[in-house]
C-alpha cells in the first residue's frame, strides 16, 4: 500500500479554521454563561462574558466574510458545490459506512481526492453550517449587538425576544454540529490523522 500526500487544506483555510475554532469555543462558553445567569452569579462574570462574547463575535463575523471571499476567489469553493447530486444514495452509502462498514475495516466509500475532499455527509453538513447556520447566527447576533435596528414588535411579540430565540437556537444547533464535527474528524484513517491534516494541510491517501 503506497501513501500519497494530497494537499487539500490551503494555508488560508487553515488560518481561517483555527481562528474560527478559537472564537467559536469562546462564544459557546460565554454564551452559555450569559444564558444561564443566576442571582448568585455565573461561571464567567456577566460583564466579562459580554465583553468576550462581543469581541469574539466581531472577529468571527469578519473571519466568516474572509471564508466566503476565499471560497469565491479560490478553487476551494468547488468543494461546496454540487452537493445535491445523488444526494440520497450518497448519503446512504456514507451513513451505512459509519454505521457498519467502519467496524469491518471496509474502505472509505468516497476517498479524498483533489477534486473531492469531502464525503457527502461532510459536504452537506459544511454547506448547511457555513451557508445557512453561520449567516443566521451572525445576523441574529448583530441584531442583538445593535438592538435599535430590530423591529420593536412583530405581531405583538417582542422583536428582541424573537431575535434572541433565533440566536440561541442557532447557537445550540451549531454547538451540536461542533460536537459531531469533532467526533467525525476522528473517523479518518487513524483517529488523529484528519487533525494532522488540518494542521499541515496534507491528507494521507492510500491507493
Amino acid at each position, binding site marked *: 500500500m503506497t501513501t500519497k500526500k494530497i494537499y487539500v487544506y490551503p494555508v488560508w483555510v487553515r488560518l481561517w479554521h483555527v481562528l474560527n475554532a478559537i472564537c467559536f469555543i469562546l462564544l459557546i462558553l460565554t454564551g452559555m454563561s*450569559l444564558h444561564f*445567569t443566576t442571582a448568585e452569579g455565573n461561571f464567567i462574570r*456577566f460583564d466579562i462574558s*459580554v465583553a468576550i462574547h462581543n469581541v469574539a463575535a466581531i472577529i468571527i463575523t469578519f473571519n466568516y466574510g474572509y471564508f466566503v471571499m476565499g471560497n469565491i476567489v479560490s478553487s476551494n469553493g468547488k468543494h461546496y458545490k454540487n452537493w445535491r447530486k445523488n444526494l440520497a444514495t450518497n448519503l446512504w452509502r456514507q451513513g451505512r459506512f459509519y454505521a457498519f462498514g467502519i467496524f469491518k475495516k471496509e474502505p472509505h466509500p468516497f476517498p479524498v481526492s483533489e477534486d473531492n475532499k469531502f464525503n457527502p455527509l461532510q459536504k452537506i453538513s459544511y454547506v448547511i453550517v457555513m451557508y445557512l447556520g453561520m449567516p443566521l447566527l451572525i445576523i441574529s447576533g448583530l441584531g442583538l449587538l445593535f438592538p*435599535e435596528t430590530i423591529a420593536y414588535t412583530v405581531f*405583538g411579540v417582542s422583536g428582541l*425576544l424573537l431575535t434572541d430565540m433565533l440566536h440561541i437556537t442557532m447557537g*445550540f444547533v451549531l454547538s451540536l454540529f461542533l460536537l459531531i464535527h469533532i*467526533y467525525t474528524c476522528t473517523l479518518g484513517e487513524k483517529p488523529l490523522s484528519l487533525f494532522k491534516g488540518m494542521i499541515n494541510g496534507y491528507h494521507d491517501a492510500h491507493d
Partner: protein
Amino acid sequence: MKTKKTVFSTILLALVVSICAQSADTLKIKPSFYEVSDYVDENENCLKCHGETKYSYSDADRGKTLTKIMYPDLIVDRDAYYDGVHRSFMCSDCHMGDFEEFPHSLDARMEDNFACIDCHGYDETYAQYHFEVIDAEFAESIHSIDGFSCWNCHDPHSYKPNMRDTEDIKEAIRFNNGMCLECHNNFSNFMLLSDKDEINVVESHDWLPNQVAHFRSVRCIECHTEINDSILVAHKILPKKEAVQQCAECHSRNSRLMHSLYKFQSQKDRKAGYVNSVILNDTFVIGANPSPLLDGISVVVFILSFLVILFHTALRIIKLRN
C-alpha cells in the same frame, strides 16, 4: 340642483364644525375643563396671572396699569392641571391663605403647604398606594434634606400616577427618568438644594455598557432603591455606594426587575398563563427570560448525541482492537 345645494351646505357645515372644533383645541379655557372641575371660573382668578406668561395689575389711585413677565417657576399649565389627579380642586383648597389679593400678603405666603400624607394617610380609599410606607421610605432616602419634599418630584399642579396605568412601558420609563434628570442633568436645579459638586450622570455610569439602551429600558430607581414588595414604586433612594452594580441582579432568572419594573405586568401576566408572559411581552432581558422547554429539549438532544458518540467510540474500540 337640489342635490348640489345639499352637498354644498354639508361641506360648509363640516367646515364650520371643524373650525369650531379646532378653535376649542387652541382655546385657553377648554370646554373639557368644565367636565372635570366645578371651579374652572374660580381658578381663573389665579390663572389669569399664573396661567400666563405675562400678568398685569393696576392701582386705582394712580390710574395706572403695569404689565410684567411671570416668573417661569410660578406658571401653572392649565392643560396639565386639568389632567392631573387633583384637577377637581380649587386653587384655594390647597392655597388657603388670602391669595386673591395682589401683592400677596405675608400671611398668605407663610402658609404651610400640605404634604401628600396629610390628605391621603391612613385612608382606606387610597390604601392601594400605601402612602404611609412611601412616606416612611422617603424619610429614610438620600433626598430627605432641607427643602426637599414629595412635591419636588410630584408636581402639585399636574401630578398623576404614571407607572400604574401605563400601556407603554418605554414611555413610562422615559417619564420616570426624566423626573430624576430634572435635577441630575440640570445643575441649576440641583444646586438650589445641595452644596455638592456637579455630578455628570453619563460619566458616573460609564461602566454600564450600552448605556442609552439601559436608560431607555430601566428606571433609575431600579438600581438606586431597595426593593419593597408592598409598594409599586420603591421610594427609598440609597446612597450611591449601595446602588446596584451587579449585572446579574437584572440579567438572571431571579431578576430584580420582576419585583420592580415588571411587577404589575408580571402579576397581570401570571394570571394569563406562562406562555403569554414570555411570548406576548415586549419586555425582555438577556438571561432573565427562561424558556424551560427550549432549554430542556436542548439538553436532552445534546446528551443523546453524546451517548451515540460514546456508543460508536466503544464499538470502534472493541471491533478494531485486533
